[in-house]
């Protein structure tokens, strides 16, 4: 009979091995899934994972890794701070949207003026937008003890409605021939989040993501606040004993993750997406949750996980056009990855013991 026994020390081996094992398990089961859909499993996996990096058109796809990976990493870093402390921001998608709306709104307000100050103003506005949208669940939690999962999630749906309303109303392009959507920011030089090195996919969002990673790493390992986050997540009573102020921590974690999500939204709307439209948001806020867990809530892990997820998106697109693989299959694949990760994580803290059943 198998029993689970708690390890005296968390296993360092498994802490690193779990994500790798999860990816491998997903390859196997994902392959099976593709086979049942009538696609060659090996070819599908190769198309998704190999093609974008080493294939024929890799020069085109590799920059896409940065473009798709940056918002994921940026949002996930913010989320990981909260998750580590047991504060669950599930509404990053909404904060992303509001950040984009605030940022684009500021940019469009200045049109057609050209100035190097406009873009920084947009960045600040985007950060502020995301921050304030996250402050709603934060303040409600601190003041009334309301569950932040539900509030932040409800606000996603509200944000989506705001997006629709803005696309059709306030921010609509007056010269757009009546089509919904705002002016294209890619054509407005001062507002455009252009590539810093042409052809590399590296725009200001990528830079921001890198800065966020470094910031989070230093915070978590060397700063009092990072320590507070870690202790609160592992032993809340011990955190109170250590003098951590739970309210301030909630405000900090939710606020920071909202701010980062808002920034991601701004960089996206001023860059790769280009305009405010009804279907502007593509689910980065939710995928970032997977990225955060896949990266084991660790800054470096999140970078790797973000790139991996970006790879599945890009590879998934290729597979869709080349092999006819349905888009939903990739979503299932991503969900599977999270499942395996959560299940295998068990072994970090527990080991299997084979022996007679005894309850002692």
């Amino acid at each position, binding site marked *: 009979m198998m029993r689970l026994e*708690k390890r*005296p*020390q*968390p296993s360092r081996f498994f802490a690193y091995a779990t994500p790798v094992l999860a990816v491998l398990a997903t390859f196997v089961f994902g392959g099976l899934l593709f086979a049942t859909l009538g696609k060659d499993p090996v070819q599908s996996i190769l198309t998704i994972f190999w093609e974008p990096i080493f294939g024929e058109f890799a020069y085109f796809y590799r920059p896409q890794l940065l473009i798709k990976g940056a918002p994921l990493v940026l949002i996930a870093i913010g989320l990981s701070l909260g998750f580590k402390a047991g504060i669950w921001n599930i509404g990053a998608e909404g904060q992303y949207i509001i950040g984009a709306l605030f940022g684009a709104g500021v940019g469009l307000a200045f049109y057609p003026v050209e100035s190097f100050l406009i873009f920084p103003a947009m960045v600040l506005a985007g950060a502020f937008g995301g921050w304030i949208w996250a402050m709603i669940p934060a303040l409600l939690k601190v003041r009334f003890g309301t569950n932040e999962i539900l509030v932040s999630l409800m606000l996603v749906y509200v944000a989506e409605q705001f997006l629709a309303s803005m696309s059709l109303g306030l921010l609509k392009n007056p010269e757009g021939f009546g089509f919904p959507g705002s002016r294209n920011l890619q054509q407005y030089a001062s507002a455009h989040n252009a590539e810093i090195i042409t052809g590399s996919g590296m725009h200001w969002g990528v830079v921001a993501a890198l800065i966020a990673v470094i910031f989070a790493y230093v915070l978590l390992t*060397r*700063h*009092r*606040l990072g*320590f507070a986050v*870690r*202790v609160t997540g*592992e*032993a809340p*009573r*011990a*955190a*109170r*004993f*250590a*003098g951590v*102020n739970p309210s301030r921590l909630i405000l900090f974690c939710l606020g920071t993750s909202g701010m980062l999500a808002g920034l991601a939204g701004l960089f996206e709307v001023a860059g790769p997406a280009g305009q405010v439209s009804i279907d502007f948001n593509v689910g980065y806020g939710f995928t970032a949750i997977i990225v955060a867990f896949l990266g084991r809530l660790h800054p470096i892990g999140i970078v790797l996980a973000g790139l991996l997820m970006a790879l599945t998106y890009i590879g998934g697109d290729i597979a869709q056009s080349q092999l006819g693989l349905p888009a939903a299959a990739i979503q299932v694949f991503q969900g599977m990855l999270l499942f395996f990760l959560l299940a295998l994580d068990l072994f970090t*803290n527990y080991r299997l013991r084979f022996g*007679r059943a*005894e*309850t*002692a």
Partner: protein
Amino acid sequence: MTPLLSLRGLTKAYPGVVANDNVSLDIAPGEVHALLGENGAGKSTLVKMIYGLVKPDQGDMQMHGAAFAPSEPRAARAAGVGMVFQHFSLFDALTVAENIALGMENAPRLRDLAQRIREVSDTYGLPLAPDRIVGDLSAGERQRVEIIRCLLQDPKLLIMDEPTSVLTPQEVEILFETLRKLSAEGTAILYISHKLEEIRTLCDAATILRLGKVVGECIPRETTARDMAEMMVGKVLGTPTRAGVAPGETVLALQNLSLPSPSAFGMPLRDISLDLRQGEVLGIGGVAGNGQDELLAALSGETTAPAGMVTFKGQDIGTLGPNARRALGVLAAPEERLGHAAAPDMSLTENAMLTGAAREGLERRGFLDWPAAHSFAERIIQAFDVRTPGPGNAARSLSGGNLQKFVIGREVLQRPEVLVVNQPTWGVDASAAAAIRQALLDLAEGGASVIVISQDLDELMEIADRFAALNEGRLSEPQPTGGLSVEQIGLMMGGAHGMEVAHV
């Protein structure tokens, strides 16, 4: 006469430790049999085997001469064995009747059950209203729920695991009356405890375990407590030394401290006043659940108080949080080692940083100095003989006694002016407990002031200069410990909670 229960050669081993080694004992019907031993002696494992929670590796058991090998508690209960655990399995949000129903095999309908509960509680002097919510009951009343739950199943053998740790002296006497009545009716009682005087009062026979083996049997009435203690521990005990110090100025004062309970089932603090003088050890006794955790939280700063209620050297610190109080020299060590005093999954170095940052210079402008925390942790391990491979080990990997030494040592080494500890030696082996008590005394001798909150009256009588009792959130007037009698202490602790003597 065939014994009711007969254990022969019971052995049980776990990886790294032999919990029970060839244990044999007999219990006659109606006998009150004590099982004595230190923490880790194997008492719990032995009774778990009798109750069907654990299967012995070797040996056998017999009940009334017939083979007895319960595979689960249900089988043991069916055979007539009832057990009242030290840690109650009760559901705070449910009623007394519902709780009892959950612990029974074939529970009758709730209305009938309520009637039976009333009958049993009257007969045995344990009044209990079936429709009360368990979370509202005192610790002694909660124990009554557990006992009645067992009695309703007509046990032939009743096992009681450390029953008096939650009772006032008067309640202990009433419990003993109940047990004597049961014994007279033919129910045998297996009484696990390390409280020697109680065992001498109540029990007919005693078996003493040490490190899993039976090291002695005796008739408690004919043996001195000291002899029993030495059999338990295996060596001659030394008592902590305390040079009497004349206490100085008032260092910490509580004035009419009243705080609501932070949680639904907690205890509010009511109008507590005390003054702690420099160099003294103040003992605060009381059974669990009377406000100990809440008092510690008020002193450590986890709960803040309105102005004027808590002053340190004349300064009002009521509104200050834990770290501000640490900077001033007011330190605390809570009861719960894993989860409150220390984070279980974090290393000893990180746990040293948890409270030591302020006074040991481990933090500079928000940035943490991990090498310094590491050496602080090493100093604690050295000074307090904490058995662990190193400061990088997780707190949960330490044994209870070693972790407690670390937790107390961490605060002691920070040179506090005032140290408040809650249950400092609970669940700790004898030598570690002695070391901790000595450390507290040394601290006081060095000029610091210590408040020891403890359920262990023996401990308080040993190390405290003055004694006060915490009862239902109220603190009695502190008295000098020398010369206090058990009756006086019991009265200070609030007497019995509405209990009557058993109707014989």
